[in-house]
């Protein structure tokens, strides 16, 4: 019964999203809904989702595509009312990775994810009041979760001595 209700609500939601943003939402086998929007529509799409009752910002993530000069942002949103999981995806330019913060919509629960992504991927979230470093201490290298940061190479150079015969295995 609950599953049927959730399915009906999902269908209505898909219709509203489709007509509002002129896109075809994808429903995965596990029932989660995925939409991709252009960078210019992202802010409006997230605000739309919040108004539609997606009151829980479960996570925000970044996927790095250096070959395509893009960062892909994914916002995973859950609605306690509709019991639907919606993922909003958008690609932004890797060279000037700045996007409006989702803090005005979801408050600190979105802010903390943005703070993490700012540190690990170097994405700027305009309007986020707190983007202080979260995990790394005295770090002056590039954002370490980017694909072009080779941590194995970094660890070798930083922590192992090539001249030391006992550590040569790390350099072979």
């Amino acid at each position, binding site marked *: 019964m609950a*599953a049927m209700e959730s399915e009906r609500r999902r269908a209505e939601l898909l219709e509203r999203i489709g007509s509002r943003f002129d896109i075809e939402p994808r429903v*995965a*086998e*596990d*029932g*989660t809904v*995925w939409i991709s929007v252009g960078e210019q529509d992202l802010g409006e799409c997230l605000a739309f989702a919040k108004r539609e009752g997606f*009151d*829980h*910002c*479960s*996570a925000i*993530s970044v*996927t*790095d595509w250096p070959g395509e000069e893009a960062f892909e942002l*994914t916002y*995973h949103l*859950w609605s*306690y009312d509709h*019991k639907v*999981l919606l*993922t909003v995806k958008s690609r932004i330019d890797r060279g000037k990775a700045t996007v409006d913060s989702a803090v005005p919509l*979801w*408050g*600190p*629960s979105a*802010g*903390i*994810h943005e703070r*993490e992504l700012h540190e690990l991927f170097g994405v700027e979230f305009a309007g986020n009041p707190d983007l202080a470093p*979260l*995990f*790394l*201490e005295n770090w002056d290298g590039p954002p*370490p*979760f980017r694909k072009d940061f080779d*941590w194995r190479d970094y660890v070798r150079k930083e922590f192992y001595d090539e001249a030391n015969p006992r550590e040569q295995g790390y350099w072979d």
Partner: protein
Amino acid sequence: MRQTLASRGTGTEQIAEGIEARDGYDLYFGPVHPGSGNFGVKLTIRGEEVVAARADPGYLHRGFEKLMEYRTPMQNAVLSDRLCILESLNWNLVHAEAVDRLYGEEIPDRAKYIRVIMAELSRIQSHIIWYGVLSKALGFDTGFKVAFGYRDYVLDLFEFVTGGRVYPAGYICPGGVRRDFPDGTKKRIEDLLVKMETMVREFEAYDSKTISARCQGVGVLELDDALRLGATGPVLRASGLAADVRRDAPYEVYDDLDFDIPVREEGDAYARSIVRGEEIEESIKIIRQALDRLPAEELPPVKPRVAGKIPEGEVYVRNEIARGEAAVYMRSVGESHPYRCKIRGPDLLHMIPVLEHLLVGAEVADVPAIYWSLNICPADMDR
């Protein structure tokens, strides 16, 4: 110092006045506080009141998301143990489900039931640790010892089934579970559940003079704030919202099982304690049902996918673990390693926005009660 004060002729009242006149003092709560784990919070106090709190995470940052991009799913299954030391089997399950959904394959029913039984035992075990550490924080050492004594019974069972007491080495892995229950497991679990019931009664008997006395009305989290700050799991349910991934978006065999979701309206540290206590009883109920329905046919051994490629695609899988909502976003481009693996743990939210919010305005003496009422784990916050 003493001399200077004496020469000014100060008594304690004047010292207190001097402290009041300043902006406040910094008090470092952790990272070497017993029981805090590798995590600290810097408090600014004025008199007895906490006027500002700033979480200081990062001591356990191991870069799991990046490490997983360099490893196959079977290797990552073992790595997923370490996402939270206190409930590794639950994290095994979230990771394994993400890979299973990318492969799009059904796992055998018996494996699903075994997964649920082990995940629920892990939840009970995690709640026992929480009870022990909270007791310790409140100065009730007996509670700590009793709880950790009972926890060992669960660890004995984990060792019997998975080979590991704390780290099951990816027992719940992509494709099912690493091996079937050994002979005699069912009887052992049934005996264990009887012990767990005795334990719950024992905790209840201690309650009036310990947890209720120190936690009632302390650290109240209103529902609006809970949503805004991203609280999930027992913390959210203690503030009045009956949200549970096992019920709202059932995975494995949870939709076939009958269980209640404990909820409280008060939102204080005591409500969070009650919710967890009741959850232990619900988990016992779930395990009994799962044992009754456990399909009889033996499981074939899981073949590790050492060289296989993960089908292209992306999934976002959510589970309800002891601390709240755990999720994995996995993206595959058809290689043997995931292209991206984002891990969402409940404690990034509970230990930073929620904790900071609850501590401001609290009295210094209430800090431990608030801190441990959230059942925090630095490992899944830092990853």
